[in-house]
């Protein structure tokens, strides 16, 4: 069995920091990302996008475009068959194909600026551009709505005539923009607020923000005359892409082979399809491969982002610091089609705390914005920002240290979470203590500086996963996983394989297999890869080891049970087994042909028991009261990793999440004009943090092993973006002496808040 951390077993590879297997390709420019691949005879595909926020498409005339020399295919809504508006199970996902088809290519209406309307494939970019200009679309503009509160009003422009609020009581009798109402209850908040000595209630607002991956969406597709398809694309989940595209294009799933390119960042935003079905449909129509790459402006206008939201939070506590009740009501922007992450937002809101009385209500609201996509712990940063802000304010109100207040209420093993389960071993308290004991927390601040603490929770998931492990003739191994590697997972999987097999890390060569090379594997998301593909890797290795022992037994002519595998070699299990010289993996591999054929291992599992992730962040900021600029001076992250297989990549997740959170908290937002068109669809005006905006990010890796994983792994990728919003808001509030309730805390808003405070003080 694989040794658990701390089991007194020396780990040779797990927990070390070897160079990643794909590293050299990535520092030399060899690594092939989505746009770096070409097929012979490929055409250039381009998309025509809506110039309106909301309009009826009365007609589309492509005749002139089709006549442009070099144009081989033009597709519109007529080229993708409609499907009924019912959820369809695709692997582990539930997909409403009616909405998906309409998002990929508008049908009755365009619903947001940038909504795809038509696509062309041509022999050159020039011809494709020319053709786009000649497509005549007759639009009838409609009033639009962008803001979540405005979209919920009874008199708001309605996006979908067939959208009736699910979960409404009484049932909705007319369509509205409220797609769904959900509710979670634990205990009785009325009783809880009765017991409270301090009750605070505040409203918060956040803006939609984009995942901001540096690599735009890109793909190359080829559909041949015999109906077989090939698709190369930048995605977090090529099996999911395959399932969705095959259904949309009307192909057998097995007839479509999807290869995941190297992926230049995803953060959840590359779990859905945009270009892929268009490229396939164009290729099918044109009879040539088609390559499509988005511009940055297209990425901003038509992909992602995550929701903006309004959240009302009410917390009651006793003066000695026990929270007696927590209540929250939140409305999340879903974009043009239902499906905001309000559900996880509601579930996570109070999850870091051990509370008796919780009541949470959420609304999923459509508006004339791009359909939201997953973004790192989808929904959680938003609701937890609001809760962490109010927790901080309550701590201030009762005069308690914010960490002590959290410690007094922290979730621990056995805590019954408001959203359902009882937690197993978790590290929430450990992260709080790590921050409290840090040198950072005990260092004094200067003038105009403020310090903030924020905690966060994310579920983490497992799911369907396949891994194959083939032993080569020389005793090296090839490891194939189906989860695209975004942040170093080929290293962590190889470490686990090497540890199990007892061979050198360098002797394991990992690759990401295409959809025809492995069984269905759910996407890279939910912080599941090192957990799930790691678990499958260990199982595949165990299968290999079992086979290796059987081969040695055959050579020694003893029962297979009398052979053990230690330090990369087969040994007789004990004196009774007989005296034989050990057989190394190399020797057994060399003789495999004579002892029964190739040695391989394969695991196809549905990984269960992902360990929840908890983290606590600490941040110091300085506010320039003349300009409203907030400078992040110092930042420390403490998070429970369960077990850090490769600590550098765990630290990298913590640091990257913190800085994405800094952007979300301080600068990033979608800005629209009165015309409903996005005004900042570029990196100059959608301002993500650059190197000079941020300090080093110190990290503390807490390790409370997840008992369900052979090495104790729990996911680490998403939790780090949950605490920063609250932590930074709390720091800014402490720096300027005024509570801010809206993100981003951009200079104009900070200036307004500071000015307000100055006036209030009679300045």
């Amino acid at each position: 069995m694989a040794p658990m951390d701390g089991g007194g077993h020396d780990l040779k590879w797990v927990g070390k920091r070897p160079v990643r297997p794909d590293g050299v390709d990535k520092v030399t420019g060899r690594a092939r990302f989505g746009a770096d691949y070409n097929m012979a005879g490929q055409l250039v595909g381009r998309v025509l996008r809506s110039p309106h926020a909301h309009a009826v498409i009365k007609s589309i005339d492509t005749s002139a475009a089709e006549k442009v020399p070099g144009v081989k295919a033009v597709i519109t809504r007529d080229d993708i068959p409609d499907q009924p508006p019912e959820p369809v199970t695709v692997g582990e996902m539930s997909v409403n194909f009616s909405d998906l088809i309409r998002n990929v290519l508008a049908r009755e209406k365009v619903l947001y600026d940038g909504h795809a309307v038509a696509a062309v494939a041509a022999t050159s970019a020039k011809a494709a551009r020319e053709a786009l200009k000649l497509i005549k679309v007759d639009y009838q503009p409609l009033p639009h709505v962008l803001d979540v509160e405005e979209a919920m009003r009874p008199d708001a422009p309605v996006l979908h005539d067939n959208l009736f609020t699910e979960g409404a009581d009484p049932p909705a009798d007319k369509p509205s923009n409220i797609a769904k109402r959900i509710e979670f209850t634990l205990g009785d908040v009325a009783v809880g607020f009765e017991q409270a000595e301090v009750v605070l209630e505040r409203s918060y607002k956040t803006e939609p923000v984009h995942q901001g991956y540096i690599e735009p969406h890109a793909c190359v597709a080829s559909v041949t005359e015999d109906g077989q398809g090939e698709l190369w694309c930048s995605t977090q989940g090529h099996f999911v892409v395959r399932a969705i595209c095959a259904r949309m294009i009307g192909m057998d799933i097995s007839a479509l082979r999807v290869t995941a390119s190297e992926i230049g960042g995803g953060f959840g935003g590359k779990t859905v399809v945009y270009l892929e079905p268009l490229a396939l449909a164009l290729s099918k129509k044109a009879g040539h491969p088609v390559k499509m790459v988005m511009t940055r402006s297209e990425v901003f206008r038509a992909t992602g982002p995550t929701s903006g939201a309004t959240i009302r939070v009410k917390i009651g506590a006793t003066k000695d610091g026990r929270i007696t009740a927590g209540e929250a009501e939140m409305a999340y922007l879903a974009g043009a089609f239902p499906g905001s992450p309000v559900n996880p937002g509601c579930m996570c809101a109070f999850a870091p705390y051990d509370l008796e009385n919780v009541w949470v209500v959420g609304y999923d609201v459509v508006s004339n914005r791009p359909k939201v996509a997953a973004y790192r712990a989808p929904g959680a940063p938003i609701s937890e920002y609001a809760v962490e802000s109010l927790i901080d304010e309550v701590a201030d109100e009762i005069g308690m240290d914010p960490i002590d207040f959290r410690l007094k209420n922290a979730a621990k093993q056995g805590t019954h979470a408001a959203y359902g389960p009882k937690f197993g071993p978790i590290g929430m308290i450990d992260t709080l203590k790590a921050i409290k004991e840090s040198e950072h927390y005990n260092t004094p601040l200067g003038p105009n500086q403020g310090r903030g603490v924020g905690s966060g929770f994310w579920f983490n998931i497992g799911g369907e996963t396949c891994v194959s492990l083939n032993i080569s003739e020389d005793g090296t191994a090839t490891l194939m996983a189906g989860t695209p590697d975004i942040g170093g997972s080929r290293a962590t999987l190889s470490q686990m394989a090497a540890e199990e097999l007892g061979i050198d890390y360098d002797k394991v060569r990992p690759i990401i297999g295409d959809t025809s090379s492995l069984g269905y594997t759910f996407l890279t998301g939910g912080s599941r890869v090192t957990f799930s593909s790691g678990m499958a890797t260990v199982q595949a290795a165990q299968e290999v080891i079992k086979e290796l022992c059987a081969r040695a037994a055959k050579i020694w002519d003893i029962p297979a049970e009398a052979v053990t595998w230690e330090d990369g070699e087969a040994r007789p299990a004990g004196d009774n087994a007989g005296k034989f010289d050990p057989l190394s993996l190399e020797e057994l591999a060399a003789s495999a042909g004579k002892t029964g054929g190739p040695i391989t291992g394969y695991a196809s599992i549905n990984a269960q028991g992902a360990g929840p992730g908890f983290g606590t962040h600490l941040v110091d900021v300085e506010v320039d009261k003349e300009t409203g600029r907030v400078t992040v001076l110092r930042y420390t992250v403490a998070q429970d990793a369960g077990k850090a297989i490769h600590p550098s990549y765990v630290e990298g997740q913590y640091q990257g999440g913190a800085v994405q959170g800094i952007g979300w908290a301080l600068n990033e937002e979608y800005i629209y004009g009165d015309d409903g068109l996005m005004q900042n669809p570029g990196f100059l005006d959608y301002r993500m943090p650059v190197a000079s905006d941020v300090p080093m990010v110190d990290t503390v890796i807490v390790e409370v092993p997840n008992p369900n994983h052979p090495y104790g792994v729990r996911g680490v990728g998403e939790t780090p973006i949950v605490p920063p919003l609250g932590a930074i808001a709390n720091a800014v509030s402490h720096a300027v002496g005024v509570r801010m309730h809206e993100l981003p805390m951009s200079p104009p808003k900070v200036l307004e808040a500071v000015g307000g405070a100055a006036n209030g003080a009679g300045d």
Partner: protein
Amino acid sequence: MSKCHVTATINGDEVEYLCEPEETLLDVLRDQLFLTGSKEGCGSGDCGACSVMLDGRLVCACLVLGAEAQGRKVETIEGMAHGETLHPLQEKFLEHAALQCGVCTPGVLVAAKALLDRNPDPTETEVRYWLAGNLCRCTGYDKIIRAVMDTAAEMRGN
């Protein structure tokens, strides 16, 4: 309009190509010469993923026309390692795990090399401001900055 005939020195080799007048140097590098190490993240000079050296000056290849490279020297990420030997920056980026997805890495490396060529002993602040034109969404910059500082120290012989 007819295509432009261009002769340029790319990573030490003389290269000839024909390009449309409106084509960028980045388009030429990627689509004609198959030097796809330089990435297009924005096409507007904001992300730095296409950073290359043009006659010793750090530029965004997406903001230079292919025709402008006539008679000039272009250095890209593909020319950074020598044979089997990686540049010290490349080594340190691997050692420090200074990349996650790696799509910004070529541009960051080209830019960082340009910095160290002119300033072998930069402060952390100098590195941060020099690399402020290279967006990275994965790492939070921490390990990138450390890798550059560590390379500088090593190259100085510390």
